[in-house]
């Protein structure tokens, strides 16, 4: 397993996690669990800790981005400082640890003065915050990870990714993967600043907004994995909008390319068909680096997890055991 892959995680005071630990993650990790058990929050915590603990405050910016993705921030220039203070206050006892990295915010009061200590190193007083963090309401692409949300799909994100695909000279491969998904699609391009697909049936380009969400989601997933290298990819509700008959193709692409590009993948699902497809394809490819992470709550309502290894997940699926949470 690559050094940069997340192998374990400990999450304290972050969203629904009071005190959570899990270990034994693989290169590709599918996460299952009932509603509101923290599947997305688990990936968000991973996306924070995968970034470097440096003095550019990358982890904290990921936290801001998460709040923004969930529409919990009012993003504007005037609100920048207020947003930042709100996040410090909201997560003042957060602690996320993984491998040898740690992200923490500690809160201290010294008389009337309030201080936040970031990553046990950087003391940040209120007055020093202005201008320190800058972010906008676009889903960002950085070198460490890409997070594809469950439903909100921004054209800007597709456009940015397509630029990277072209820069990497991966356009033919990208178009081939799209044709494999839907024979009616001949190619993808950005025309008049809009993502479009050329459809064989009408022999012309059509804005992808006129297609279903499934196509947009598929384009995003394929694009994101093609442009990732030595990074991490988070796919929330991966099966959303995608027909079950395309799931095997999708998993084959994810498993194959993530191996070639050295990318760690975390994805969430509610779908039994999606889990079965994941296991079927991994077994066919003999990809033993897959894991399944099942989340549930114990008798005290605390979130816990079971991490299934390759043989264990195959056994559970082949025995028709329900592993979608408890």
């Amino acid at each position: 397993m690559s050094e940069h892959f997340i192998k374990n995680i400990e999450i304290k005071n972050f969203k629904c996690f009071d005190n959570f630990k899990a270990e034994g993650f693989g290169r590709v990790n599918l996460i299952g669990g009932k509603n509101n058990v923290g599947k997305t929050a688990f990936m968000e915590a991973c996306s924070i800790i995968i970034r470097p603990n440096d003095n550019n405050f990358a982890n904290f910016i990921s936290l801001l981005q998460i709040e923004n993705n969930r529409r919990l921030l009012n993003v504007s220039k005037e609100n920048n400082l207020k947003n930042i203070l709100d996040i410090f206050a909201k997560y003042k006892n957060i602690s996320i640890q993984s491998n040898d990295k740690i992200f923490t915010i500690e809160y201290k009061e010294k008389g009337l003065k309030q201080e936040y200590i970031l990553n046990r190193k950087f003391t940040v007083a209120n007055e020093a915050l202005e201008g320190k963090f800058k972010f906008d309401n676009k889903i960002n692409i950085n070198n460490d990870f890409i997070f594809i949300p469950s439903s909100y799909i921004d054209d800007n994100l597709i456009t940015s990714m397509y630029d990277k695909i072209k820069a990497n000279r991966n356009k033919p491969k990208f178009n081939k993967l799209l044709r494999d998904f839907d024979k009616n699609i001949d190619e993808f391009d950005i025309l008049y600043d809009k993502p479009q697909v050329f459809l064989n049936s009408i022999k012309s380009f059509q804005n992808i907004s006129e297609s279903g969400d499934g196509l947009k989601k598929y384009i995003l997933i394929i694009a994101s994995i093609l442009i990732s290298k030595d990074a991490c990819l988070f796919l929330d509700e991966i099966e959303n909008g995608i027909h079950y008959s395309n799931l095997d193709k999708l998993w084959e692409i994810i498993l194959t390319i993530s191996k070639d590009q050295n990318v760690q993948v975390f994805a969430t699902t509610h779908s039994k068909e999606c889990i079965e497809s994941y296991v079927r394809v991994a077994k066919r490819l003999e990809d033993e680096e897959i894991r399944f992470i099942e989340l549930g709550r114990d008798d005290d309502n605390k979130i816990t997890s079971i991490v299934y290894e390759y043989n264990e997940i195959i056994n559970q699926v082949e025995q028709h055991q329900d592993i979608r949470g408890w």
Partner: protein
Amino acid sequence: MVKIICEGSDDKTFLRLLLNDIKQHDVSLQDISNFDGYIEKMGGKSKLLDSSNYSLLTKQIGTKIKKVLFVFDCDFEDDDKVCGGLENSKEAIESLIQDLNWEIEVDYYIFNKNLDYFIVDTLDKKDNFLGCEECFELKKLNKNRKILTCIYKSLYPKAPFDFSHANFNELKQKLTNLFEGTE
């Protein structure tokens, strides 16, 4: 969640049928549409009694799984001096439960001889089937009475077992207890 641990596919099929029968009279099982997810097969008695095969279940115990019932055959002492026969099987399963040290409710049910013997004993026309067994010297071919149960299932596909027979009561009670008070 609860889990029934059995030997193989025949046991799983039988337990599924029995649970569906119990469901018709027990309101607490009404919400369960498919019992497959509650029954796990280990691939034979020797694997069922070997504690090294329980690493995954041990991960699930306490958090996901709250009660377990082992169901298996005692088989014949002549074939296995250590685990064959009722007394040896009881000793083996109790030793396994002790080794596993799961801090949840664990129970077991052992079929006297095996599932096929158990089923033949409950058949309405048992004597006819035993006569058939003797006449064709079936025990020389298979001492487990599987041939007899296969003949029965072929002859009466729509009414395979009489679950109202008293011999089923103990197992039915254990299954009812297993599902009682759990999701």
